[in-house]
């Protein structure tokens, strides 16, 4: 059994961007042939103008850092969103 965490296709809801986080469990034979797979939605990363947060879809509590640890590719998304709304003080 192999388990991996993947980010699904982003969804646009008005001004919000939603990134679903999915846990994929793949049942494989010894020779690598796939017998079945299970997808479990774990959390949702929400990017709003000026705010980024995560919503847990399981009973486990998942804050933004946990989500970013599970899916490091989302870190750039969050950093980009923070960069856009950062106010430069000169």
């Amino acid at each position, binding site marked *: 059994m192999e388990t*991996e965490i*993947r980010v*699904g*296709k982003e969804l646009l809801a008005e001004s919000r961007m939603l990134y*679903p986080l*999915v846990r*994929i469990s*793949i049942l494989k034979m010894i020779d690598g*042939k*796939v017998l079945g*797979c299970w*997808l479990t939605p774990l959390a949702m990363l929400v990017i709003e103008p000026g705010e980024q947060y995560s919503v847990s879809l399981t009973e486990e509590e998942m804050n933004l850092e946990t989500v970013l640890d599970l899916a490091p590719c989302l870190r750039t998304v969050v950093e980009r969103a923070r960069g856009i709304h950062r106010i430069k003080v000169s």
Partner: protein
Amino acid sequence: MDLISIISAMVLILIILCLMLLIVPVHLYLELCKDGPSIVGCYGITCLGITLKRGSIPPTPSEGNVTVKEPEREDNRDNSEQEERQRQDQKRLPNPRSLLDAFPAIVHVLKDLIRSIKFEKIGGRLCIGLDDPVDTAVMSGYLWSALSAVGLHRANIFIEPYFGGARLEGDFRAELQSRVLWAFMAMLRALGEKKIRRLMMEMAWGVRA
């Protein structure tokens, strides 16, 4: 021996030879492999251990290697030829009405043809990935269900979902056996159907009833 008996013996031998050709099973094998952008493969037809035809499917050129021809000068003669060709193509398109009329008969003929084919070996692997892992999982589920519904769950066909991005790779191999007689009979039966005859005439000569 007189001439008539020699001719009749020759005709008889010819008929026996034709019947043998129709009855003897013909084996066909096909191998296809898609690795990256190109598809390669080979095929062969054997009869009584004799290879009648063998060939290979050359790799398709990748998009980067495709050379785009420069647009040629428009010539009046070329245009008229193209128009004539288009007109002929349109003429040869079957009437949708007669296609619909002939549909049940076509299904019947196809069933007969499929029944005449015996799959000896069939196997393959398909690695499929879409840009969303959820879509990939759903597509894999559809494919697994379709394989099961078609009755190929026992065949060595494996659907492998790839969750890392868009991908389509795989290989397919099949060995099948068919007797030309049944296909011949199916074709004869098809020609016996008036609706199929009309459809064929429309496609061949553009004749419309």
